[in-house]
């Protein structure tokens, strides 16, 4: 049982590695954790392109907020 569990884990790890490699290739600038989250969402049936849009949006949002003057941050 434990061997199966570990096998599963390792294969999940491998999959994540592969996806990470691909994302590196595609220059998506995602870290492994985010990829894991996103893939999880995709697995849950989220529209992948919409998700991509969300990521994009959040990034922009984040960038906007970080360049906002400090009072907003506070």
């Amino acid at each position: 049982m434990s061997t199966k569990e570990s096998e599963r884990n390792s294969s999940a790890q491998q999959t994540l590695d592969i996806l990470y490699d691909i994302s590196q290739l595609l220059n998506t600038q995602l870290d492994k954790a985010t990829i894991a989250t996103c893939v999880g969402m995709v697995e849950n049936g989220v529209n992948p392109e919409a998700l991509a849009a969300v990521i994009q949006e959040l990034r922009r949002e984040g960038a906007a907020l970080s360049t906002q003057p400090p009072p907003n941050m506070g």
Partner: protein
Amino acid sequence: MATASSLLEPLLHTYVPASRTDESLKNDLVSHCQEILKSHIGQKTETNFSQLTDLVKRRLLQLSPSGASASKFTNLVARLLDQPVLSRKQESILFLFALSSLNTRQPPTIQIPVLTTSFPSRRQVQQQSPNNISSLIGEDGASSASRLKEYRLLKGVSHMNESLLVRDTLYLMQGISGKYVRFSSLKDDEKNLVFGGNSKNSISPSTQALILRLAELGYLYSRVENFVRKRESAHGVGMIEQSLCHYLQIQLTEYYRLIAVLETHLSCTQRESADPPSSVNEETGLSLRRLDVWVTEWRLRMRMMSVCVEGARDSHGGALVNLIHSYTDNGDPFVRRFTDELLEEVSRPFFATLQKWLFSGELYDPFEEFFVTADSSHGHVPYVHPSSLPGGISQMSNEGVFGGFSGDAEDLSGHRENGQKLWETKYRFRKDMLPLFVGESFGRKIFSTGKSLNFIRYSCLDSDWVVTREKMSNTGGILEYGDIGGLERSIDTAYQVASHRLFEVFIEKFKLLDHLSALKQFLLLGHGDFADQLMEALGPSLARPANTLYRHNLTANLETAIRSSSALRDPVDVLRRLDARMLEYSHGEIGWDVFTLEYKVNPPIDTVLDLEAMEKYLKLFKHLWQMKRIEKTLDKGWMRVTGGAQKFIRMPELEFEWHKVRLVMAEMIHFIRQLEAYCRLEVIECSWKVLIDFLNKKEGDLDALIDCHRTYLDRIAKKILLWNSKPGKEEVLLRQLLDIFAFILQFREATDNFYNFCLTESARKDQEMDAERGLFTGTPKESDLASSQEHLAGILGRLNEYGSGFSERVLVLVQQLQIHPDLDCRFLGIRLSFSDYYKPRREQQPLQGPAKA
């Protein structure tokens, strides 16, 4: 979605660190993100896996052109597919791919539209930092159009109410100036629109353009209408043009109907929109644009009509039909249909004329629109019946040659020309008037058919048949444009029937064949016995001077010849036409030069046997008659030199001379016999057979018949007269032949002299011998031996001269015949020199006047 939203939070935390602390911001973002997720971005593209990987590879190649990353990607994908964990690998890759492409698209700041429009403003509102301009847009919500309107109101210039303009436009479409928009010039050709408006209102340029478009209809309309009006009042307008006007009128009526409907519509609209003023009825009302759509088809139609009107201005009749027909080859089905319709209408009078022409041979074409025109100088006058043809009694007048002759000849030739002239010139074919849809060959057939029928009716006095035919063919249906196939069929049948009938009429009713064979028998001396008899009867008198000949003697002799030969069995009608007469003679001519047989023909036979043909027959007769004369003379001479000379003349010292005479004469007889046989067998009979074959076939029309007879006659004339086709040498051989004939006659005369001399001489010798025996038989004439010897030498010299002259000339003739372009003539050369007797001098050195029978 619960899991999805729960997973959103880590993402939010990652990218917007501020959201960790700011709850409202977090909620805001989460709801926003969920909105995005619920949206349908990219869901339309259903891609399969391989397509997706292809896309990715292409993208990778864009990022790094080396291709290494692409192969690496392929590798990774293969490994990914081996992994059992993920169930939606394709979507995962799609996600990465989409993100990647969004990433790079970012620099040119093209963003997903959903985000750009609402998000910033929302945030800005939320952030309570309003911007002046954006607030103006946001709160007012007015479009630039409405602002422009306000601006205009401010300025006091406003646009016209469209419904008013619609009314004006309806007027314009009828060529009438409206209240606000009017035509500037009253001239037909150039009409300009003036947009008046009133002081307060103006018409916007776009509306102006629209009205201009619509007004084109009005312009075209007034042109077409003008044309129709003008033609209505004018007289002498062709039938085809009339029917064009008729069609145009129908079209215009349709157009009025359309205008009326539109007007009703407009008034309804206005009543409805009267309650809420100013606002144009949006749903059902009449606007300029709607008007434009509704009249689109009419614009095309009007344009076509206007083109036709333009064309009708300078073409006429069949040419006009042609002009319209040229538009049927249009690729646009609408134009094609329209022109077909128009053509159907316009060609109706044409087909009516055609039918009349094709089935009854009548040309009813008061405006000269048909492609057949009648020459007015030859009216529909039926002919004078043959019996009333004036006889040529005054021709024989001895003294008053000028008065009697010329008058009669004119009269006669006037009548003669009629048949041929009538056939050839009464109707003429006009190619430019022939409608294209008929085609030229059919046009010719139609032309020929009508001509034949007309000819049968008026020249052959056989109108009953034509009328019956007409009735029969009328049941067959009406000819019209829509049924070109049927038209061609009926043309073909009508053509065949008409030409067949024409042949029948000519051969059975008018006995063309009898006349042709009579011409051959009498004028071409086909009846050998008749020719012999005539020669015998006339021979003595023809040797006398021409002015001592009398016509009644000639006709009496002709009568005798006919009675005593097999010609008696020929039809009376033929014999009646045969006449002997003399040509115009001058001083010093003898009967042989002026005598001729004549065969009289009347209409309608003279269509085939026209004046020209008869002249040729006469020419041939003259030649053949001369040949016959030579033959007869030689026959008589031969009897003398063989019978008489051997029986009565006992002059052994002249026996050798007689032998030479016989040789030469035999040569001459050979020559003339061969020549005659050639004329008879090779030329006349062969040509005759061709002609008869044609007549038996009964194909083609009268023109073909005339042509055939003409070729028959031409062939005979050319071969008998040894006509050479080389320019300048046409009659060289004929002249040589006539030369030879002259030599023969002179030789014959010389032999007669020789014979007479020998006869006297031997009579003198007989007397001397009688005196020696003591028998007194008469007073011995004191003959001068020297002078008689001289006389003999002269005669012998002439005999020699003529004999050798003859031989030389025949030699030359044969040589020329051997290189004659005509094969038959070449064959005559072979006939004459069958044993190679006539060889050039140098080739026949050893031969010296060998015998030749």
